[in-house]
């Protein structure tokens, strides 16, 4: 754990508001992304973010600095997300027997940061592809999906991701590889790569032309 992080923790414990904001700005993106890719809902993601940071504030005293801040934060996020999902499922009288972090989508497919307003009838190709990828991600088994989200989307190192999931690094890496393979399969089946190839060809064709 870096000295910066240690200092930040100390300031947090002391009740420094600026420290809180610093922490927030450092990690809000990845926390939000985790929540978003799990729940597919902006509201849910926002709630999860708030819950995560509140819990972190409450228990910063007990944080023993054995892991990085990122790991810890995302562990909290993961549990907050799980709780959220469970609560929603209970409200909806459940959909599946086992409380997976199932995709609970209650809003339109999101708009990217700075992107088009929702409800736009014509989605660009890029958006369509992204939507495919998101959907494919949702079909993955929970563990593989988590690993992908943590590593690829939340930009955690394999080590930190292993910490969040509670696995060994080796297991995490293996799962990561498998997840990529699986995702590729799904995307391949969905014809994403064909489109990509076609787009590339088109581009090349346009370039030639």
């Amino acid at each position, binding site marked *: 754990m870096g000295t910066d992080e240690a200092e930040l923790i100390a300031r*947090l*414990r*002391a*009740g420094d*508001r600026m420290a*809180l*904001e610093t922490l*927030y700005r450092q990690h*809000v*993106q990845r926390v*939000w*992304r985790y929540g*978003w*890719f799990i729940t597919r809902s*902006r509201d849910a*993601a*926002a709630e999860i*973010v*708030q819950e995560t*940071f*509140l819990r972190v*504030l*409450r*228990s*910063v*005293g*007990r944080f023993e600095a054995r892991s990085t801040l990122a790991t810890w934060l995302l562990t909290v996020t993961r549990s907050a997300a799980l709780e959220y999902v469970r609560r929603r499922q209970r409200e909806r009288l459940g959909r599946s027997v086992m409380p997976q972090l199932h995709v609970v989508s209650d809003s339109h497919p*999101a708009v*990217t*940061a700075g992107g088009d307003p929702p409800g736009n009838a014509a989605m660009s190709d*890029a958006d369509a*592809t*992204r939507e495919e*990828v*998101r959907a494919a*991600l949702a079909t993955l088994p929970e563990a593989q999906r988590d690993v*992908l989200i943590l590593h*690829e*989307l939340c*930009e955690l190192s394999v080590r930190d991701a292993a910490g969040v999931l509670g696995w060994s690094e080796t297991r995490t*890496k293996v799962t*990561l*590889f498998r997840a*990529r*393979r699986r*995702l*590729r*399969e799904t*995307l*391949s089946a969905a014809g*994403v*790569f064909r489109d*990509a190839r076609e787009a590339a060809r088109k581009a090349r064709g346009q370039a030639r032309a």
Partner: protein
Amino acid sequence: MNCKQAQQLIDLRVDDPHAQDWTALEQHLAGCPACAALLSELQQTRTLLAELRTEGPTSEEMESMLCAVNAENIAGPAITQGVSFMRRVTPFIAACVGVAAVLLLALLVGGSHYTVLVEAVSPPAAQEVLRSPLETAGKPVVAGTEVRGYNEERFRARRMRVAPESVGGNIAGEAYVGYGVQSDRAALAERLDQYSYSVPFELRVPVAAPSATPSAAADEKGFFRFGEAQVADADDAKSYVGGTAIVLNSENRDKEGDGVVDQSRLDVAGKALEYVAREERAAAGGTAGGRGSGIILGQEFTPTPPPAASPLPSPVAEGKGAGHARGGSVAVGGGAFAGAYEVDRKEESGNAPSVARTEHFALAGVDLAGEPDAYDNHVDRLVEGTEQEAAPAVTPQPQSPQPERPQPDRPQSQRPEPKIIRTGTLSIEVTDYTATTERVDQMVTRCKAFIADASTKEQQGGALVGTIVIRVAPEQFATLFAALKLLGRVEAEDAQAADVTDQYVDLEARIHSLQISEERLQELVKSKTIIDKVQSLLEVEREMTRVRSQIEQLQGQLRVMADRVGMSTITLTVREPARTVPVAALTIEVTEVESAGPQLGALLQELGGRLISGKTGKHTDGTLRGNYEVQITLARFADLLSALSQLGRIEDRQVKDQQFGDTNAPWAAKVYCPVNLLLYERSRQLPQGSLRLEVDKLETALVALQEVLPQTHAAVVSSQTTREEDGRQIANLTVRVPAGQFANLLTGLGSLGRKLNEQTAGELGQIVGGMASMPRELALVLAERPRQVPSGRIFIEVEKFATARQALSGIIEQQKVQVLASGSEQRTDGTWVGGFRLGIRAGEMEKAVSELESLGRVLRREIQGLGLGDLARMDGDALGTIELTMGEKASMQPDPDRAAGSIRARLRDGLAGLYNALGLILYGIVALAPWLVVVLLLAWVLLKLWRRVRATHK
């Protein structure tokens, strides 16, 4: 390289393109389009995923979330300040608990103290030593003896300090004992000061005056006899008979030259003992056989080998220890000797390690074992010696026979011999009065004296006191006086010698002159000159008479004086020490005073006590009390006190003046001690109560009652009988019974009938003694069983109501039935119906009912109370009620609902059947459902596996 290997490398390459050299892989990929496609697709996947990273919260969202967090953070709990409180506190708590545990342990181990078993080593030892070889002992004095405990390392007792206070030979004192757990002596000493406490103790050493008969002494095996030490005082060259000079010293062994520091209690020997002490001190420390010890007499002596019988028999003491003595005695002139002894004792007791002790005794005494008559001889010698002394005063001259009449004594030409009246008073305290007086007799006889007067009186506790007036020849006055002093403890003495020579001579002279006057007067009477004058004769005769009487008076005085001069007087008061007689008063709670009295009598008989007076009386609450004045011998006093606990519970016990140890005194069996006893019965709560019984017939019950009551001395004091409505009788009785029989009465009454209710208060059983006869009242209720009065309902169908009603009135009149209520109404269909409540005498019920039933067709009839059993108990006059309902036949109308009803019913049945069937089906489904689920799950799992298997093989 095959595809399998290539694919593994592809994964790695996708993950980290710069990890290693991929040349080999490139080669394979060049020739394998599938793998190349895989790599390309995987890379694209990664890229696509990376694009997803662009998704994130909008800036508004970010700000709003932050605001929410801040807001909640303000409102919510504050950031914890470092390690949680519990975390911090836990080690502290653990430390506290640990320290507390250690402290507790230390307290338990270290704080315990040991009770010291104080054994007064020397005094009992001395007693043992003195007692075993001796039957009679002198008066040992002990001081400054050190007492040691059993385990020196652990604790130690302090020295015992004895305050010598011999009263009749008893030593009372206090032992100061301390305890501690340290072995550091200095600290221990301090602690002992702090924690020492005193243990009072008393040692009884029997005291005997010098043995009455020397022959008894001869039987003794020992070689001491205390009380008869002959001690010579070098200064006076006189002998003192008697006295003890025992000194025990178990300390100062190391110090040379230090001897005994104590003094004997006897005054006579006191002087001598001081002498002893001084001499011993001067000597070189008490080793036997040396010059140092036993220098009592102030004479030089040469040590002689110790007498053969000198070693103390061993074991010295009985009981726990064994020991032997070393040392010996040294004979000193005059039959006295002294000795010093070193006694080793080893004591073992229970778990304590054995302790070896060495005690030292320095003893002095007179060895009279070989000379049974030594005492008497000695006294004789003394007496003879003094006689010979006095002999020269009497000149052995032939005496002229004494004239009949007292001749006028010529005044002595030579110097008159001195006339001394010697008187002595002596008051001694002795153990055995009778023995002492016998000895006095003997001494008096030996000294050729005589007892002029003797009187005895009994003091409290049977102690005797008496006065003996002894006349003894003046020459032996001193000897006898001295000898008497040795018989006991001198309380007071006084010896006077009054020189009455002058008075004597004066008296003689006066008598002489008066005698001369008498002679002259006689001559005068004889002379003729006087006879003529009658008056003168009378005068002369009167004068003669006067002179004569004066002469006689003076002669009488002279005689007395001569007598007193001739024989000295010793007034000896012999006193046994006052005995305190203990008194006791006890209050005992007994079960029954009546039986306790004879029990007490038996006890007294067994112990040899006397019942002086006994009085029993009744207390206000009925309990008996007994006051008894009892006397018991002192010897059995303690036995009685403990035996009294057999009578009952001792509530109060007061004992005064109980001296332990006196029980073995010889006079203990003769002295009676008063004991007052108050025996009382415990007051109890007297029983009372009430009892309610259910009986079959009251008359029989009352008769049975009269048989039950006398068994418990009970009687009915009041009774009241009532008759209920249903004819049964209830009797309310008050029974008076003695408290002691209350429980029995209840039991006896229980046989009369069935107990309905019983309430009691107080102590039912165990009322004995005076209270048992106190009258108590029991409220008794005897109730006959409730009777079943016949009653019922009858429903009759009649043709015409009016006619039936008329017939009914006829019956009513005829059977004398009472109409309690009646009513009638017309139904919707025009028919009439009526109801009647009839009161019918039970005796006529049957008949009436049959008459009523003849009014029409009986639809229904419910009647109770007319069964066989009921009839037996029934009171014929009791009133039963019958509810009679008479109704005209209702008209016959077709029932429109019936048909429909039946169809409906059939439909209902059919539907019910259907519901049942459906229910069964549903039930079947529900029962099977779990199984279906299991099957589906299995299938799903299998499918997944199959897919995976397929995927890997691809």
